[in-house]
């Protein structure tokens, strides 16, 4: 009897013990199960590729030869990237385009958004904003193809307009130089290619910034303007001393997006140069374009992975500089 009761006792204790442990385990696992769709997608499509590309950047790999053909080469890919003239050229182009395409975007968007908010009401304003937003939601490839035709030297509408302007009665004098330089090869000269690309970017993204800034101007309380008016501010002073400082967080947000976006610029230059290794003199070769060229056209995946990490470092440095100088003020905003 004693032995059996002794046997029973631990069994009784053990039974609820195991069950509760399972229950506890299940309890702690259930949340993981519920977030697993995200986790799986994140691991497969974000974490793994990220890790794999670090690994890849130390290998020499021609993808066509299969996974087994990878060869460890240490830092060779990084070292050869550092003295790669096309990489530096592409980074220079990227920075050039970042400035040339972004500064006009914001200089145009801020006043337009201000005027829209100040002078138009409700539906009309929404109509205008929506119209200006359309370029942003149009496919980049489609936009770039249209601009490719617009820029066409002999048949493009841009050159035809310039010619027409030169024969107009009053302003013709301003454009008298046009017939002498025709046809202007917007995409066929290395010094015209970058401005041509920058213009497409400006056209496409200004509307997006107008939307952001309109939202910003709408947050400003009417009382502030009224107080300014009482103090004798004219319209310009209301804009410069009241409205503009108030939308600082919005400027910070829009500029951050612009910086990241322009450092990843790919489709516009790719389509406008017909995918032809960056156009004349590689003037349209941006960093991500070059990355694509090395990896997919030249089949040097290891080198491409190394370049992508160099590009990552570069973006990180640029955005942290931007955050350091503008972040505090930008994020403080109205408070």
């Amino acid at each position, binding site marked *: 009897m004693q032995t059996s009761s002794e046997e029973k006792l631990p069994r009784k204790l053990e039974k609820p013990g195991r069950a509760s442990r399972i229950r506890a385990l299940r309890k702690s696992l259930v949340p993981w199960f519920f977030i697993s769709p995200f986790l799986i997608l994140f691991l*497969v*499509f*974000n974490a*793994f*590729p*990220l890790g*794999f*590309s670090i690994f*890849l950047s130390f290998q020499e790999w*021609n*993808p*066509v*030869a*299969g*996974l087994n*053909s990878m060869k460890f080469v240490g830092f060779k890919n990084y070292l*050869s990237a550092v*003295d*790669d*003239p*096309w990489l530096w050229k592409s980074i220079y182009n990227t920075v050039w385009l970042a400035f040339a395409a972004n500064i006009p975007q914001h200089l145009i968007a801020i006043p337009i958004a201000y005027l829209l908010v100040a002078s138009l009401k409700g539906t009309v304003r929404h109509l205008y904003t929506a119209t200006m937003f359309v370029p942003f939601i149009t496919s980049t490839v489609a936009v770039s193809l249209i601009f*490719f*035709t617009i820029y*066409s*030297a*002999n*048949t493009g509408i841009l050159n035809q307009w310039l010619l027409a302007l030169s024969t107009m009665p009053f302003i013709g004098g301003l454009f008298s130089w046009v017939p002498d330089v025709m046809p202007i*090869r917007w995409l*066929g*000269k*290395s010094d015209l290619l970058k401005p041509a690309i920058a213009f497409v970017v400006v056209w496409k993204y200004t509307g997006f910034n107008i939307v952001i800034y309109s939202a910003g101007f709408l947050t400003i309380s009417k009382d502030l303007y009224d107080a300014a008016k009482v103090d004798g501010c004219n319209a310009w002073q209301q804009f410069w001393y009241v409205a503009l400082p108030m939308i600082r967080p919005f400027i910070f947000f829009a500029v951050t997006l612009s910086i990241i976006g322009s450092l990843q610029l790919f489709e516009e230059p790719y389509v406008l140069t*017909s995918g*032809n*290794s*960056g*156009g*004349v*003199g*590689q003037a349209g070769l941006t960093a991500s374009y070059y*990355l*694509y*060229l090395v*990896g*997919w*056209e*030249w*089949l*040097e*995946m290891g080198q*491409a*992975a190394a370049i*992508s990490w160099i590009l990552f470092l570069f973006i990180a440095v640029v955005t942290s500089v931007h955050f350091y100088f503008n972040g505090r003020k930008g994020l403080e905003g109205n408070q």
Partner: protein
Amino acid sequence: MKKSLIALATSASLFATGAIAGDIRFDGWPDLDSHLDTVIPLFEAKNADVKINYQMNDHGDHHKKLTTNMATGTGAGDVVAIDVGFVGSFINGGGFENLSGEKYGANDLKTEFVDYAWTQGKGLDGNQYGIPYDIGPGVMYYRTDVLGGVDGDIDQVITDWDSYIEYGKKLKEKGIFLIADAGDVAKTIVFTTVEPGNGTYFDKDGNSLVTSERFVTAFETAKRIRDAGLDGQIGSWTNEWYAGFKEGTVATQLSGAWLLGHLQNWMAPDTSGKWAVSNLPDGIFGSWGGGFLAIPTQAENKAEAWEFIKYLTASEEAQISALKTIGAFPVLKSTYADAAFDEPIEFLGGQKARLLFAEVANNISAVEPQKGDLIAEDVVMSGALTEVLNDGKDVMAALKDAERLLMRRVK
């Protein structure tokens, strides 16, 4: 990079299923599907146990997909088409069946094919990996009405590059361009006058040829045409290019036999009868494009795939059918005696152009594809050439810069 790895992962999962036993899949790009629609029923009638389907992607995507298939070792078709521009990079990677091996015995077919095309399908180890299925014998297309307008004689025009340029000067007075893009002349010279035993950009030992006489002559000839204002600076495959053909503002175009199909079907159908073809200027023979068929080592039904490749390339029936349906010029020499070759071609004013194409095909000398060709083409023939032509960079300086870039990548 992240994007490409995602692409790699997705395509791996998408195509992981592969072909079912007995079925073979053909991977290629349009218009091959039109050709296959005609010949698959003929082949299946003879081989009742084999079922063939195909997967077409556009030219660029097809080669990108094939790259991911090779990288991951899964998802490629049993028979894959490879463009001549990619064949050197692909077949030397080791992912394709050695068709010279005992299982296939491709070497027995060698004599039946146009020599240069056969050589292009060889790997660096001397074995056959790709079997050519079509070729693009190079010719000069010219407008007969334009030529008549200046009382020109075509044989005189194509004597050498000087006489060709002289013709251009006469045309300029009438406001007609000699050629759409002077760069085509440079490409023609570079690709067609390769010294025996050399590759296009490298010699046998992998030394660069980029600053050699051939490249200098090519670039300088193109520059002469550009500087004299004889070309339209019009890129290929743009609306301006098609407009030039339609309106007769461009007098000549150097290209492959396949351009004929494009011209008469959609680029400039209304200009029928106003065109003719001749040999390339300066007595050179060259080719524009061409396609190869290969079997990936990952394929499941290799024996059937090989039978189908043999049917597509080494049977007169399939080769002539391709000529008729998609204008792909045959690579099988015995077809040149076919009646189809004697047919006058209406678009070319009744010229028996196929005889000329065949003559050109037999005279082209082989250039073996090499590993660095893809990089070299980007760096030299798009990069350096446009800098010389569009930006006025010095020829030798441009070639030296290109060579330096090239060698630090290829070595």
